[in-house]
């Protein structure tokens, strides 16, 4: 990244210093964001490789490509890598890290050194996890359910558990940094009601990171202790309870879904107003719905356990609360849609991703409502219906938001424009490939195909839909690789970006592109509200030439 050519008179965070040491010892939030970007992208491709093997195995009903144990490791490690080492840090640690200080008008996060520490902790965790993969991997499913993980699995559960335990601290530190920054570092005049919705959403995310992550850390430590010291907490033969693990695990891992989706909503809340040239519809409702999601999200965990032998009445309560948490998400979707009403809409790449997000997240969210419905969940629980549902939320939601955000802020981050035509093509390929991969899985799940099946040779009637799904995954892979290629290309050959190519509101666009090390020459004084698009000129017509 240090190789790009930028006119010498413009000093910025990228060319302020050179050399590997200047990156590894940096405390600049923007450089740390770039360190995270490189690391999570690498992990994404590791997880993506596992996904590819899973889809290839399922192309034919018989288990003929991988061994059963290998297949079990593939889906376990696909889930763990994608959830803990890609999705959770993706938008917060990259875009949040890069943008939050600028959006609130600060020079850096509240604790720059802790920010760097969080990256090192992430690297230690990811390194340990890669070592776990290299030495044989783990086969517990990403959920580590006991007593399989604690007493029966012969794979490297301890290493995987510790790796995720360590990576959790990086998440906690990032959340802590964001909370303190938003409270203490806002520029004069940047009141809470003037904060961009991106910041609100990240604030809600940070609260979940701070309160939820310690619980998964404790839970995984208990599994590790159970394996090493034979504690017996989850062992029914010694009075332990294997279902207790599920309560502890989902107490974090359900809110973790909101750690993934809220930052993505943050991105969408910035993109939609910008490309509609309008103020966001119902600012207060969108902001408060983030907080509502964070709070209610902590009270719904047992909806993962409706067939796990919990009592009728607790199932009733958790189902009810799950329906409640769907309401703030619905409020957001309605407000984004209303923001487009009577706007002046252009379909640039970030907007395509944002609209794709709304579509796929709506499907993901509403199928979540199906799953919250007690009677229906009994049938589709632990089938491909669930797989399709959470991929619509995590990929259709979180990953599309990440890609949209990367395109939207790419000119700010690198000072270069990505090629618009390629951007739109890739966005459409991702959308088509995604739907082709995961829509058939809804049908498969409804037909009864259980998740984590390596071999379905007794049910050959399922092959057609699985072939569609694998074909879609191939298209999706192309859609992921394209942006990798053209964005790297644009670092050197892309058009040099203006400071504010989209004519967007927000303090980050008042800085130069790329920003200087301390973001602002002097601390901005804010006298306006967020999203005053009526005061912004229309951006140049986007041209499709490269």
């Amino acid at each position, binding site marked *: 990244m240090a190789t790009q050519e930028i006119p010498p008179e413009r000093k910025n965070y990228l060319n302020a210093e050179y050399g590997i040491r200047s990156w590894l010892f940096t405390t600049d939030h923007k450089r740390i964001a770039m360190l995270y970007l490189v690391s999570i992208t690498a992990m994404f491709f590791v997880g993506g490789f596992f996904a590819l093997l899973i889809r290839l195995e399922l192309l034919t009903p018989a288990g003929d490509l991988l061994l059963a144990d290998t297949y*079990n490791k593939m889906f376990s490690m696909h889930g763990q890598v994608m959830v803990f080492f890609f999705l959770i840090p993706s938008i917060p640690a990259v875009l949040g890290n890069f943008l939050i200080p600028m959006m609130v008008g600060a020079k850096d996060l509240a604790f720059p050194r802790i920010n760097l520490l969080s990256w090192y902790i992430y690297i230690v965790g990811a390194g340990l996890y890669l070592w776990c993969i290299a030495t044989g991997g783990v086969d517990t*499913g990403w959920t580590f359910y006991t*007593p399989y993980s604690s007493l029966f699995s012969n794979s490297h559960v301890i290493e995987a558990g510790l790796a995720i335990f360590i990576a959790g601290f990086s998440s906690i530190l990032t959340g802590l940094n964001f909370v303190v920054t938003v409270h203490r570092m806002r520029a004069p005049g940047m009141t809470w009601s003037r904060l961009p919705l991106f910041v609100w959403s990240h604030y809600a995310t940070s609260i979940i990171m701070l309160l939820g992550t310690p619980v998964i850390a404790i839970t995984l430590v208990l599994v590790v202790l159970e394996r090493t010291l034979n504690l017996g907490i989850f062992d029914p033969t010694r009075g332990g309870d294997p279902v207790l693990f599920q309560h502890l695990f989902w107490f974090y891992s359900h809110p973790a879904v909101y750690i993934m989706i809220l930052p993505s909503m943050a991105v969408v809340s910035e993109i939609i107003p910008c490309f509609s040239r309008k103020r966001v519809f119902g600012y207060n409702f969108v902001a408060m719905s983030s907080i509502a999601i964070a709070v209610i999200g902590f009270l719904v965990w047992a909806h993962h356990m409706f067939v796990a032998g919990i009592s*009728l009445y607790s199932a009733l309560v958790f189902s009810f609360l799950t329906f409640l948490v769907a309401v703030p998400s619905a409020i957001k979707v309605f407000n984004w849609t209303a923001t*487009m009403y*009577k706007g002046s809409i252009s379909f640039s790449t970030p907007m395509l991703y944002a*609209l794709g997000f709304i579509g796929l997240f709506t499907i993901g969210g509403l199928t979540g409502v199906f799953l919250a419905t007690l009677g229906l*969940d009994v049938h589709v629980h632990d089938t491909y219906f669930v797989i399709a549902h959470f991929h619509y939320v995590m990929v259709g939601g979180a990953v599309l938001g990440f890609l949209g955000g990367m395109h939207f802020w790419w000119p700010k981050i690198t000072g270069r424009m990505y090629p618009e035509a390629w951007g739109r093509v890739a966005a459409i390929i991702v959308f088509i490939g995604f739907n082709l991969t995961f829509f058939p899985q809804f049908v498969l799940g409804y037909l009864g195909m259980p*998740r984590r099946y390596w071999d379905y040779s007794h049910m050959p009637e399922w092959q057609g839909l699985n072939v569609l799904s694998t074909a879609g995954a191939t298209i999706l892979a192309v859609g992921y690789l394209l942006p990798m290629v053209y964005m790297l290309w644009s670092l050197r050959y892309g058009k040099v970006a203006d400071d504010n190519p989209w004519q967007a509101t927000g303090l980050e666009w008042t800085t130069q592109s790329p920003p200087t090390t301390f973001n602002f020459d002097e601390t901005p004084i804010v006298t306006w509200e967020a999203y005053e698009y009526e005061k912004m000129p229309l951006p140049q017509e986007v041209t499709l030439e490269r």
Partner: protein
Amino acid sequence: MTLAIFGAIVIFGVKYRRHHGREAHQIEGSMILEIAWSVIPLGIFMVVFGWGAVIYFHERTPPRGATDIYVVGKQWMWKIQHQEGQREINELHVPVDRDIKLIMTSQDVIHSFFIPAFRIKQDVIPGRYTTLWFRATTPGTYHLFCSQFCGTDHSGMIGQVVVMNPADYQTWMSGGTVSGSLAQNGETLFEQLGCSTCHRLDVQGRGPNLKGVFGKPVQLQDGRTVLADDNYVRESVLNPTAKIVSGFQPIMPSFQGQVSEEQLNALVAYVKSLSQAPAGVAATPTNNPGPAAEKP
């Protein structure tokens, strides 16, 4: 609702597409709309919630008089024990139009008993019983899956449920060699393990007399009252000091590791049979639970 949102996005997208320099119309929000699109979905959600809850309560409440069948999950097979003594692996034969209640446990990890055609599923958990009930209405053969990941051969832990006409079912029941009903086997075990030295059926021994106990509330030493159900009997065998019956001493040793899950099922079936003395209540032909007299 999904279609409405997609429709709105497409219509707005087309209608308000940026033509040369067209200005956006600024609208900041509308309280009425916000309330409308919060309350209306909430109302719809509550209807769906209630509907789903009613179905769930029905699915989770076995009717009285259902036929008990015991299921043990293990890596990687389903073992079925019928009351009449038949045993099957990965196959479950049931008669049509009869309420069937499965009493299930696992001898290793968590499994899940899933019959897609019946729309039912229940995790099978080591260390306790979970139950599942159904009433099959059409004869035929249906898939049976394990839907909770349980290790290497998870996708091989499959089988079939065969729903039969009453006549076919009778033929099936009379075929094969069966050495006594489940409760009779339990009774034999009850003798062999020495349970009957303390739990006497004629007089009150050092342990409670188990006649008529099943299905009734039991007064405990610490003042609590618990229902003597399958899980209670199970726990009393494996972890006897967990719940001490009022008036007795905690002297019973644990049988953890000494009885297999299937033997435990037989013991539970036997204790249950001790409470089914009045004939005509149970729909199933159980043996007459007289005092232990016959030898194996």
